[in-house]
């Protein structure tokens, strides 16, 4: 199949995760001829790059995509990884998405009148293209990792499965977003003492005034806030994921909860020198900032609840204990004395655009776009943090973004001549 002339099609969607499929639904609904290319299977990242205990941060009722709403019997529960794989595959079936699996895109070029998409199973020529290949293809590891002593094992969240794969002994978890706190919790509970390096983070209670925090943010419109309404979209797009975990107990997993089971908090990792990890003295301020920002969110929720006459229906407003930080957190940690056996780099993820031969990357390696409309004719982006709305990177955020961007895409198709010859 690799040989032969390219197939012509209006639109190629790259990636059959929930974002690419939501876009496929919107395109199919409006008669746009398209193909969804998937390097492996539907929901591949969920099958191959997630740890065992992971559940979605959003409750089941929120798992809605265009043409599909959750109809199970546990609306307040949180999907496990197998649940998510089933859910996304079910969606692909329900919408009869034109997916070509086991097809890796090797190159995308712009050729004046459209895009040439080369794969390991043939080529396409298309006027429009949707990049839905995911935001978390590669674990971002800071350059200082290279200075860690060779005796230390290093793991990223993409290859971590469960604590049993780690050596016995202490673990330094670097990063306190959703990933970092979840891994710190289960690794510490496995008997491997965890030190958690904490930089800027987003603190959130799982449940507030009797309802899930996602319910409040959804209802109060926080999640619908648009990219062109926020003060500083670059900053908003770089905010790390909230300290949340989806669990049957709906428990809150914040830094106080971790300290409560014996996890040791330490400042942001600033360097590794001569076998000693160095940490910033800014832990107290980072915790204070997160507490203040959480209270600002709770203020927004309380105001919205009052304005909408909910105060009689839910428990009264309250505030959570401020984050406890010891008086003088250590600034250094010896990595050579055997106390720390493993470093887990929970320092974020980035997309892989190694196949993208269109000059749309900025100097930080991110695609230049305006709310998903990429800086190249007929190219659109899906599934990135705060792409068009605060909810963009969540499953339920894909619908509105796909509807908006398919509008742009169809307008572009209508306004340009089709490929000739």
């Amino acid at each position, binding site marked *: 199949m690799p040989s032969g002339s390219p197939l012509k099609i209006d639109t190629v969607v790259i990636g059959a995760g929930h974002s690419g499929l939501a876009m496929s639904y919107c395109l199919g609904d409006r008669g746009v001829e398209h193909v969804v290319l998937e390097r492996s299977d539907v929901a591949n990242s969920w099958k191959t790059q997630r740890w065992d205990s992971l559940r979605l941060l959003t409750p089941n009722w929120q798992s809605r995509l265009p043409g599909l709403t959750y109809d199970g019997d546990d609306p307040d529960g949180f999907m496990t990884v197998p649940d998510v794989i089933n859910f996304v595959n079910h969606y692909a079936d329900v919408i009869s998405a034109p997916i070509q699996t086991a097809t890796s895109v090797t190159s995308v070029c712009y050729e004046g009148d459209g895009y040439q998409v080369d794969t390991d199973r043939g080529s396409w020529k298309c006027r429009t293209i949707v990049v839905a290949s995911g935001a978390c293809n590669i674990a971002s590891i800071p350059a200082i990792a290279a200075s860690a002593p060779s005796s230390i094992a290093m793991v990223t969240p993409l290859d971590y499965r469960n604590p049993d794969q780690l050596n016995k002994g202490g673990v330094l978890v670097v990063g306190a977003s959703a990933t970092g706190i979840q891994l710190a919790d289960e690794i510490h509970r496995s008997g491997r003492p965890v030190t958690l390096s904490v930089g*800027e983070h987003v603190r959130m209670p799982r449940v507030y005034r009797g309802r899930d925090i996602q319910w409040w943010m959804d209802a109060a419109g926080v999640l619908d806030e648009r990219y062109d309404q926020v003060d500083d979209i670059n900053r908003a797009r770089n905010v790390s994921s909230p300290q949340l975990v989806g669990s049957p107990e709906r428990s809150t997993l914040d830094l106080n909860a971790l300290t409560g089971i014996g996890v040791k908090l330490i400042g942001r990792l600033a*360097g590794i020198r001569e076998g000693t990890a160095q940490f910033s003295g*800014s832990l107290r*301020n980072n915790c204070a*900032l997160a507490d203040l920002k959480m*209270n600002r969110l709770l203020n927004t929720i309380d105001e919205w609840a009052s304005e909408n006459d909910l105060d009689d229906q839910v428990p009264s407003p309250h505030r959570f204990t401020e984050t406890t930080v010891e008086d003088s957190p250590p600034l250094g940690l010896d990595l050579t004395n055997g106390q720390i056996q493993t470093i887990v780099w929970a320092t974020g993820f980035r997309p892989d655009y190694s196949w993208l031969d269109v000059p749309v990357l900025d100097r930080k390696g991110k695609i230049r776009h305006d709310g998903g409309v990429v800086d190249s004719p007929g190219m659109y982006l899906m599934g990135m943090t705060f792409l068009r709305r605060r909810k963009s990177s969540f499953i339920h955020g894909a619908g509105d973004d796909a509807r908006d961007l398919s509008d742009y895409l169809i307008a572009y198709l209508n306004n340009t001549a089709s490929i000739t010859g």
Partner: protein
Amino acid sequence: MTDKKVENGVDVEFLLGAREMLTEAPEGAQFTWRAKCDWVNGTHSKTSIEGYFGLGDEQNHKTKHEFDADHPELFSSEDHGATPVEIVLVGLASCLTAGVAAVAQHREIQLNSVSATLEGGMDIQGILGIDSDVRNGFDGIKVTYNIDADASQEDIEALVAQSQKRSAVYDIITNPTNVTVEVS
């Protein structure tokens, strides 16, 4: 809420404009700050600040600024100026306070008064070489702000927190920095 215009003397529009410009042209954001120090006598030295590099060119302060540093008479010195470690506190205090004013202006909070007291604890067994387990520098710094502003206590705390997040000197003190000292 009043319609009174908030005026803390910070040109936020200029700062936002500069931010936008330097986002487009990041090479202009490369600055080099300089100091020149001359030994006077004993522990007394005089440091002058005049030129710096930024926006792609050599720049100058409006006038030369000079700083005497010395040790107090307690150490059998002549106390011609603050001790170097106290000058570090000066840097931290003035950096954070400038930040408070800038953030307040940006958030449209009128400041009426801002004062900070700083304390840096130090076990001088370190610098005297008595105990090698004791570091030379501060074992901790405590900054206490007293702020009167037309804002809630929570908003004031947020100002102070944000100013730490954006402060150069706070970063310099809380994070390690490679220091190269050579003799020419």
